[in-house]
């Protein structure tokens, strides 16, 4: 036997068919209940709270025969549920998902109805998650709105909410996937970003997505934005040298609906020239005067024009000269 009561209610339990003046003992989850809670053989629970949920049993005084047992569940009637419908797989269909803003602490059942004009549509419930169902579009490009009503019922009451929308308004793709950002060799201000269409979007060729990229160095709050009408890659050309960047991408159907959430953020730092190793003292004394600037990634025009030198030996000379400049810079900081 199950009994549902509202939080704050006063609950009276009768000991089955026992008379009011019968001698009984009540237990809650196996623990005797103090007589102060009894009115004759009735158990009185005032202003019940959640902690008072449990098994209540009533035993005849002398024989200890079990006369009555119930499982009390204290809870609340449902508040207005929160309902959301979205098409992340346009033009195949859409899904609706819901939840309660506050728990009821007792079992709830949900019923969803979808009407398109005068036509009832079936929203097939997903196994996982439970609070979700999906609908296949039977028509496309309709101006007739969809009306979705979700009713939630439990032993203590019911509530409902309704959403009305048109086909285009709820189109919102999932975020782009596999976002990758890489430095570009020998380019201290560039980052190459690439991504893929969300796998849930069924036909990107017929229903192409456009993209929004945002990026900023970690040390700044201000985002830079770029909107891209095609392609799944972009090269950032104005990155601050040597600074780590955070990058995200969002997607939207080219023609309808709203932007996706931002993708998972990726981090990348533009290419910087690698630190040099010291060689011989003779090579150090041969070099030019030192620079007093702070140690930064060297500009592309520098002492060694890499295009002019050939072979690893020459490269070593270039690196050495660069290292010496750096060494002198450090001395002057």
């Amino acid at each position: 036997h199950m009994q549902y009561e509202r939080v704050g209610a006063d609950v009276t339990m009768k000991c089955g068919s026992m008379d009011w003046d019968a001698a009984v003992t009540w237990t809650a989850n196996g623990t005797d209940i103090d007589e102060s809670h009894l009115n004759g053989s009735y158990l009185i629970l005032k202003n019940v709270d959640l902690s008072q949920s449990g098994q209540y049993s009533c035993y005849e005084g002398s024989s200890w025969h079990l006369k009555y047992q119930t499982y009390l569940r204290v809870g609340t009637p449902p508040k207005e549920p929160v309902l959301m419908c979205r098409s992340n797989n346009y033009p195949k269909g859409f899904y609706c998902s819901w939840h309660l803003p506050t728990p009821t602490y007792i079992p709830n059942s949900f019923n969803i109805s979808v009407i398109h004009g005068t036509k009832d549509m079936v929203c097939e419930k997903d196994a996982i998650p439970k609070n979700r169902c999906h609908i296949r579009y039977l028509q496309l490009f309709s101006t007739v709105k969809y009306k979705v009503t979700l009713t939630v019922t439990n032993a203590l009451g019911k509530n409902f909410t309704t959403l009305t929308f048109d086909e285009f308004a709820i189109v919102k793709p999932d975020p782009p996937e596999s976002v990758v950002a890489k430095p570009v060799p020998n380019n201290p201000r560039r980052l190459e970003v690439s991504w893929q269409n969300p796998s849930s979007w069924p036909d990107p060729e017929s229903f192409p997505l456009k993209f929004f990229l945002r990026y900023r160095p970690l040390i700044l709050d201000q985002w830079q934005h770029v909107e891209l009408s095609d392609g799944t890659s972009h090269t950032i050309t104005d990155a601050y040298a040597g600074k780590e960047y955070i990058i995200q991408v969002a997607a939207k159907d080219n023609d309808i609906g709203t932007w996706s959430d931002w993708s998972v953020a990726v981090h990348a730092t533009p290419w910087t020239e690698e630190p040099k190793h010291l060689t011989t003292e003779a090579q150090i004394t041969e070099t030019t005067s030192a620079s007093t600037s702070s140690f930064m990634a060297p500009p592309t025009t520098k002492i060694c024009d890499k295009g002019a030198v050939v072979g690893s030996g020459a490269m070593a000379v270039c690196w050495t000269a660069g290292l010496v400049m750096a060494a002198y810079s450090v001395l002057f900081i």
Partner: protein
Amino acid sequence: MAAADSPSAALRRDLCSRGIRLAGKMRADVVDLLDAYVEQQGLDASASVAAVEGLPLAAVERWDEQTGTQRLLENLAAYRAFRALLAQMLEEQREQLGEADAGLGRALAAVLLQVSAFAYHLEELLRLESRGIPGEEEEEEDGPPPPPRLSLFEQKLRGLGVLRELAQWAVRSVRDLRQLAKPSPATGVAPGLAESP
């Protein structure tokens, strides 16, 4: 694709691309016109509109199964109907409102021009496929038969219905042309469009 692009396939793709741009621009202008129309006519943007006689509905079942020819023919029929409906709206606009809504009248005329241009573009695509272009229905008078005289408010509501449906069609047309532009994997020909005999 294994086969090289035939000249007609390249031309089809080019016509489809241009058509997509035309339809995209048309849609943007229709949406702006809708906003202006709602505001200037004193309407509620979400008002329900009763069925408008002769209004081609963009709603379609099994859209993905349509052949290329079906898409072109349905689009052409729709835009021809819109041409007549918009011309009627423009006429009513001029009669009823005179100079007060000259801006709205100009915007309506601009959209009408784009609708006509798009209809012509669709005829070009049909010609490319050596499809006969369906003749426009002969009427005793120009355009659809004159409907019973509507009140000013009914005219405004009908206008709202026409523009809303046109906005839907513009989106559908972009999608239809993208489908048309897709080469069929087997033959290199757009799906649903048979080779000319």
